[in-house]
């Protein structure tokens, strides 16, 4: 956790601990802290404070978006007042890109029990949403309720063209909402600019140095949102339940610091990443870079190593002090072939040897040196 975050949280789990829904002095202070945090989060994400709904993490935010955003209210082209073409639940279509996180994929799949259809938007070989295919799908389907495309993919780091996607939706399915998972995006992208076309925007605090179990959903005013959990009516009746004051304060502090440092951090991390990936590609015969760096964020290093199983590689890297991932683990912790790589059409022998090394603001040159020593050694040992 970032220092500024832990520091900001401390009073709210100590001397100033109070229920923000109460009316006494301590409660009012807690409530004010939440509203200060709301202002900060709104500013960092290019939203108005009233658009910010605090949640218990990114997954909850995305579930609220997928299940709860019924339709988008839009102005009719001839200016005859506001249209509100409701996509009714029964028979409505939810489209998600093929590389969405399980929080989106499984939330969308869960809507099928209510008679809705879940359709997948293909990606190209680089792992970027295919705009041509999206346009075809938008034209071919009626009654589209939601389209979900992430800002940045969590496994391979590819940046998705949220602006052009939003434009297509406005033209071809104006009542559909665009849900943007920017859990990764908020760390490495200027989401104010990149995601301005999204109707709903989800973030998760622990991805940018904040605490676990806290997130937020930005809900634009033109979205008709149905709450998914009910109770005391907190968060303007969009998400009932007593807020996690310290967590929310910590998230705001971490997001503010991340946003402030983003440009400088990005440049530094990109050069570390480039040295890492170039070094690995040079040292490991047959290794390929999964997506071109031109479509990726700075922090992501993702390669595929033929002739090696990710599962074995990760154990040896862990032995060597390197925490890596294959990109995709199920609830049991077992690694399976990544659906993201399958969607990109990466051949099985390469996908089996997927290796993701994520860099962060705290990554050092020494970390890269270590990885450049340990990873090729581990691969050589497994290939032997």
């Amino acid at each position, binding site marked *: 956790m970032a220092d500024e975050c832990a520091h900001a949280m401390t009073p709210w789990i100590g001397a100033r601990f109070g229920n923000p829904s109460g009316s006494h002095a301590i409660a009012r202070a807690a409530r004010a802290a939440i509203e200060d945090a709301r202002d900060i989060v709104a500013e960092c994400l290019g939203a108005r404070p009233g658009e910010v709904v605090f949640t218990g993490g990114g997954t909850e935010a995305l579930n609220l978006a997928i299940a709860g955003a019924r339709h988008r209210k839009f102005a009719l082209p001839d200016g005859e007042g506001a249209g509100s073409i409701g996509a009714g639940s029964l028979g409505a279509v939810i489209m998600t890109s093929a590389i969405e996180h399980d929080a989106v994929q499984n939330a969308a799949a869960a809507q099928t029990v209510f008679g809705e259809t879940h359709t997948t938007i293909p990606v190209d070989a680089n792992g970027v949403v295919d705009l041509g295919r999206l346009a075809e799908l938008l034209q071919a389907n009626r009654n589209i309720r939601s389209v979900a495309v992430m800002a940045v993919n969590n496994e391979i780091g590819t940046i998705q063209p949220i602006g052009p996607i939003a434009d297509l939706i406005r033209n071809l399915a104006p009542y559909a909402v665009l849900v943007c998972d920017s859990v990764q995006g908020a760390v490495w992208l200027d989401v104010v600019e990149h995601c301005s076309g999204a109707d709903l925007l989800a973030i998760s605090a622990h991805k940018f140095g904040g605490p676990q179990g806290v997130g937020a959903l930005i809900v634009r005013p033109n979205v008709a949102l149905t709450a998914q959990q009910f109770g005391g009516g907190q968060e303007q009746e969009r998400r009932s339940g007593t807020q996690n004051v310290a967590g929310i304060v910590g998230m705001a502090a971490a997001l503010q610091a991340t946003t402030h440092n983003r440009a400088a951090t990005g440049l530094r991390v990109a050069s570390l990443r480039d040295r890492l990936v170039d070094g690995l590609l040079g040292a490991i015969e047959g290794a390929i870079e999964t997506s071109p760096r031109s479509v990726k964020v700075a922090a992501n290093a993702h390669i595929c190593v033929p002739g090696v199983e990710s*599962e*074995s590689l990760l*154990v*040896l890297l862990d032995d060597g002090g390197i925490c890596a991932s294959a990109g995709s683990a*199920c*609830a*049991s*912790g*077992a*690694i*399976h072939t990544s659906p993201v790589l399958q969607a990109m059409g990466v051949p099985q022998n390469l996908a089996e040897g997927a290796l993701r090394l994520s860099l962060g603001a705290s990554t050092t040159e020494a970390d890269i040196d270590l990885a450049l020593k340990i990873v090729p050694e581990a691969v050589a*040992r*497994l290939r032997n």
Partner: protein
Amino acid sequence: MSSVAPRVLVALSGGVDSSVAAALLIEQGYRVEAATLKLWGGDGDSGCCSVADVDDARRVAQQLGIRHHVFNFGADFDTHVVDPYVAAHAEGITPNPCVECNRHVKFDRLLVRARQLGFDLIATGHHVRRVEVAPGKWSLSRAVDAAKDQSYVVHMLTADVVASCLFPVGEMEKSEVRARATALGMRTADKPDSQDVCFIAKSQGGRVTFLGSRIPLHKATAVDTDGRELGTVDAVELITLGQRKGLGVAVGERRYVVDVDVAGRRVVVGGPDDLLANDVSLGLMTWVHGAPVEGASVFAQCSAHGEPIPATAHQEGTLVRFVEPARRVAPGQSVVLFDGDLVLGGGIARRV
């Protein structure tokens, strides 16, 4: 133990036996890590592979303070266990999937992986004993707890594999295993024993549903040994030689399936005497140390919980003659030969 203790990878299923096995190995001074195998992605009632079982295994590893891995061998399990199980039934053969899982996954894939990662040995919670019959020469023997003995399902291990395996709970009574787990405060202490085929959910229609969704099931005519029609059975693919129940044929006295002809859609039903045979022919032999000599006296165990039957072994063990006529062995079942408590090896019953 020497200054640098051997590294052991224990297969931790989330059940009580493997949990205690891991604890015993730590006590014995080994450097222990645990691996839970994710084998089956479909429905199943228990046994293993559910998220809850992996969580149990992980928790046991945490309590023991050892590193825990999850290895996804699902593709190997499909290829070597589930797919052949389904294909065999389509031909009226009844395989033992636990035997195939041990043969191809637990003691092959896992052992290869363990060696790759620098482990000296693997261990499991099987109730079987490893005994040193001569210096450096390891054999398999029946477990201390005869009622829980699992030597039948691990009979295919060859001497070099046995030399790389540890079976700590084979030296204990099951009640002792549970007592140890309780004493260690393990969540798994009172978990029920796994049984049946782990990838088939009894609660969801069992074998009928599982096989019925994968291969066509055919009705067949049930006849007696003289060829007289007795009735119809629903799915000839699910009928096993020696089966008594579930034939839907009421004939008063005790009747057994004495022949199954899948292609001809015919099931022959007869009395206990019609089920007897003098011998059984085996294929796909494996031996711990080599085939028994011609005419060697052995005990043959013809099913997972079958009694050992006195017999003699012939033709490199591929022909097993029973001393007294014995119940015929369903094709596909493993027949395991013992010299007293020692496992000699075994093979798979051929179709007559």
